[in-house]
């Protein structure tokens, strides 16, 4: 999703992803109380790569190289600081043991996947406040820096740094471990992890052209984290449903704006610009989500996205099915955003008049008050009913609310459609 310079010698985001895996690996051995040490060690290994590769050339296996250096530097740090108390020798022996394993060994790969999963679950533990869970997951499991997280969430670094401090304090105070949760605890932790992942994805998805690319990186990272869970033994149908939702939505990212960076609504999008690899990924996980009798919100959302993806043109979209799904989703989660999306489906099936009636209760919803979306949808429906002056009022008001530059230009375009003649 980010442009790759044609001269690049490494996989996209390799360092970021490997940072997460290496921290996971070392944190399991060092213990969650020494997360900082694991992070510093990994940072040191990457620094060494930066200082040597440009002069000595790329190692044959960059990932293996990074792991080896991080492991050695962890051994040094543990010996130097005797951090782990009496367990120093055991810890050193354990790291040493893993340096002896061939990097490409499937057992080691599996160990790493398991380490990463444990780390994701600890970062997403329900005992940590959600904002802190999000920051911690991106920092520790995702390899983002404080500055990058701050940029991605349009916040200042201080705030993010404080959240991380709080999260790490929770880990110590609540004595959170890297053990995989079991029984009912597992379901709670899984729900929490999915919530964090989906939050990260949505934050990235609302970003627009012209905004910092790091915001779109959030989508990539959320998909990666969710896939880690989906490919593990604890994956439930809901996990696959979430991966499907995100893959379908991510597939539309390239078609969401035109060459000039102007916003294009779903109905006007050039479907040939949808990312077919991601669509295929979406269907793969969607198929795997339809087993068992559990129907989560992610299932319904995935079904809506799949219905859109299945249609080869806007005309062939089966709107009655989409409306039915939105009714179901609204019954599970009567959020104003769901209500707005449902209204668009109502307009397609039963006309704009009914859709307009359906969104009347949202008029004073505090969640929508500062947001342009309610007014934009209302204006859109009024325009369809040829109530041009009322529609123009809506778009003018929407322009006073919080929106990105492409959204602003979109509203201005709609406003001009309201002009007579």
């Amino acid at each position, binding site marked *: 999703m980010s442009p790759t*310079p044609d*001269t*690049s*010698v*490494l996989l996209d*985001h*390799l*360092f*970021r992803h*490997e*940072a997460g895996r290496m921290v996971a690996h070392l944190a399991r051995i060092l213990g969650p109380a020494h997360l900082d040490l694991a992070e510093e060690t*990994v*940072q040191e290994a*990457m*620094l060494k*790569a*930066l*200082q*040597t*590769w*440009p*002069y*000595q*050339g*790329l190692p044959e296996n960059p990932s293996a190289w990074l792991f080896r250096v991080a492991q050695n530097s962890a051994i040094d740090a543990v010996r130097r600081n005797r951090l782990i108390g009496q367990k120093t020798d055991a810890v050193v022996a354990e790291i040493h043991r893993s340096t002896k394993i061939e990097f490409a060994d499937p057992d080691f790969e599996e160990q790493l996947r398991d380490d990463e999963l444990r780390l994701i679950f600890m970062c997403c533990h329900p005992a940590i406040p959600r904002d802190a869970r999000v920051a911690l997951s991106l920092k520790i499991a995702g*390899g*983002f*820096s404080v*500055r*990058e997280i701050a940029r991605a969430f349009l916040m200042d670094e201080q705030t993010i740094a404080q959240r991380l401090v709080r999260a790490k304090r929770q880990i110590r105070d609540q004595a959170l471990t890297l053990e995989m949760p079991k029984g009912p605890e597992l379901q709670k932790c899984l729900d929490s992890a999915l919530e964090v992942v989906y939050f990260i994805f949505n934050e990235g998805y609302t970003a627009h052209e012209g905004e910092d690319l790091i915001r779109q*990186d959030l989508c990539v990272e959320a998909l990666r984290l969710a896939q880690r869970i989906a490919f593990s033994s604890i994956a439930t149908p809901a996990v696959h449903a979430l991966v499907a939702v995100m893959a379908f939505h991510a597939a539309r990212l390239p078609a969401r704006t035109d060459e000039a960076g102007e916003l294009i609504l779903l109905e006007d999008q050039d479907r040939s610009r949808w990312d077919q690899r991601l669509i295929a990924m979406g269907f793969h996980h969607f198929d795997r989500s339809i087993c068992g009798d559990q129907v989560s919100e992610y299932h319904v959302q995935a079904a809506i996205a799949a219905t859109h993806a299945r249609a080869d043109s806007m005309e062939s979209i089966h709107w009655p099915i989409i409306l039915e799904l939105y009714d179901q989703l609204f019954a599970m989660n009567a959020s104003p955003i769901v209500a707005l999306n449902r209204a668009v489906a109502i307009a397609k099936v039963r006309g704009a008049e009914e859709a307009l009636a359906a969104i009347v209760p949202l008029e004073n919803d505090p969640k929508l008050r500062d947001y342009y979306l309610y007014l934009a949808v209302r204006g859109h429906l009024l325009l369809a009913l040829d109530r041009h002056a009322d529609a123009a009022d809506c778009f003018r008001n929407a322009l006073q609310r919080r929106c990105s530059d492409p959204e602003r230009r979109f509203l201005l375009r709609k406003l001009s459609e309201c002009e007579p003649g």
Partner: protein
Amino acid sequence: MPNYLLLLYEDPSGWQKLSPEEMQNAIEKYMAWTKKPFMVDSKRLAPNVGRVIRSQGGKPRATDGPYSETKEILGGFYAIEAADYDEAVQRTLDHPHLEYGGTIEVREIYRR
């Protein structure tokens, strides 16, 4: 064609602030530069040696650094080909080391 030595000085503490993604970007940029056709050789110096040997009272003595007042250390070098000194400097101007706050000293290597 004459060869020139590019001595790359850096403040190692400056790198610490980079995120993994930024470090990867930096590596990509440095490595893209080393693919240029005029590149002859490149070597990195290990950071863990720190002794200077000089004669004191007629006897050679090794003392620990620092060797200069600045925080910058010599990190490595490249050897490049260029028609003359001006061209060597010209070819160095777009080196990413400068973008990351480093300094490059350009020296001609005498031929026999």
